[in-house]
């Protein structure tokens, strides 16, 4: 991630081009997550722009020692979406500030655009679901295990195993890609 550290240091000197390059690199991934979180194109666009405004205005809040740039921007975006989604519901909900209390929202859209792609589909259904709930639906662990109707410990285990499988899957993909690149040379 040598590229990122250079871009980020340029970002800290208010280099607009660095922001544009970081946007090109990360916006689609972030947009994919936040669109699935809110299922509203307008909100998702607004949040995406807002997220990069925050990145532009507070680049010093990012510490490369504490994690990847993507993770940092994902957290910013997720918080913004959840803040928007929670606002109108505050009137109804008093204690639990869960975003998707109603089943409707939790059901993943059948919309082909929003349907999950890639390695996640190779996972077993309950592993996929665990990931889906915390990552693409914005549920907390506590909300998610209730949603799946399994104990919290079990849910955590699902998530851990899911991530482990994904890692293996990505490693194989990476190896295959490297072999492919080698062959092409």
């Amino acid at each position, binding site marked *: 991630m040598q590229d990122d550290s250079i871009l980020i240091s340029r970002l800290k000197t208010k280099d607009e081009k660095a922001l544009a390059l970081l946007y090109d690199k990360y916006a*689609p*991934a972030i947009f994919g997550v936040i669109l*699935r979180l809110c299922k509203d194109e307008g909100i998702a666009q607004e949040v995406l722009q807002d997220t990069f405004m925050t990145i*532009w205005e507070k680049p010093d809040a990012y510490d490369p020692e504490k994690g990847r740039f993507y993770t940092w921007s994902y957290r910013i975006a997720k918080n913004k979406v959840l803040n928007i989604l929670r606002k109108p519901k505050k009137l109804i909900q008093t204690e639990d500030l869960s975003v998707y209390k109603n089943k409707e929202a939790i059901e993943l859209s059948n919309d082909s655009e929003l349907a999950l792609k890639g390695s996640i589909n190779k996972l077993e259904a309950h592993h996929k679901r665990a990931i889906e709930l915390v990552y*693409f639906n914005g549920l907390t662990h506590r909300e998610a295990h209730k949603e799946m109707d399994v104990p919290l410990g079990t849910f955590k285990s699902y998530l851990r195993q899911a*991530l482990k499988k994904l*890692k293996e899957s990505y490693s194989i993909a990476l190896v295959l890609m490297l072999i492919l690149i080698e062959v092409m040379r």
Partner: protein
Amino acid sequence: MTDKTKIKETGLLEQYVLGELDAAQQLEIELLLKSDEELADYVLEIEKGFENLAIDNAITPPKVVKSNLLSEISNNTKVVSLSNENKSSNKWYLGIAASIAAFLLISTYFLYAELQNVKSDLEMVSNEKDMLMKDLNNMANNYDDLINWYDIISDPNAEQFILKGNDLSPEAKIVSYVNHEEKSVVINAELLPELDQNHDYQMWADVDGEMINMGLIPKSKGMIAMTYIDNAESLNITIEPLGGNDHPTVSRLISNVYL
């Protein structure tokens, strides 16, 4: 090792990556990761896992979002740079204004100095003009006098008589013009020798043996009009005490001419 496995099983690390933890828990994990490379690597793998998931499921946002974003940040920066430009252009204008002010100051001083020069020149010229006017007046007066004298002496009725000095004043010579029609006598006393301060020349007309005063001859000399005396037989000039005399001092008669 078991501690680490326990930590992994708490799910805190996943929650950390997903941003579910509160500030205190987050700080705790951060401190832990700093001191434990294995756990840090483990977290890095979780991060990569979620990141890869996101990349797998990336959706290209509409181009308008990027253009809005870039125009918003460049607007913000432009506001700053614009105000800087204003400042610098203000400075630029101030510089120009200062230059103009300095130029005006210098040229005002220059013009003031020039004005003083012109004033003194004008004064000089005006003085010269006054002097020339005086000269001209004098000349005009002289000319009038000359014309007068010329008229008198060129008059056909004017008779010229020359009075030559006798032994008492051999250098003396007076030209007189007598006009009986106009009843005027004019003399040219230029060649009369100078007298001391206590005496004057006086002119007399002889009428039937009686000497009648025709007037003193002024010391300024030149052409002088004398009193015309009817029936004068001769013109006589004597040296008299200063201011003239009622009767001529015959012993000091220096010249006479018969008409």
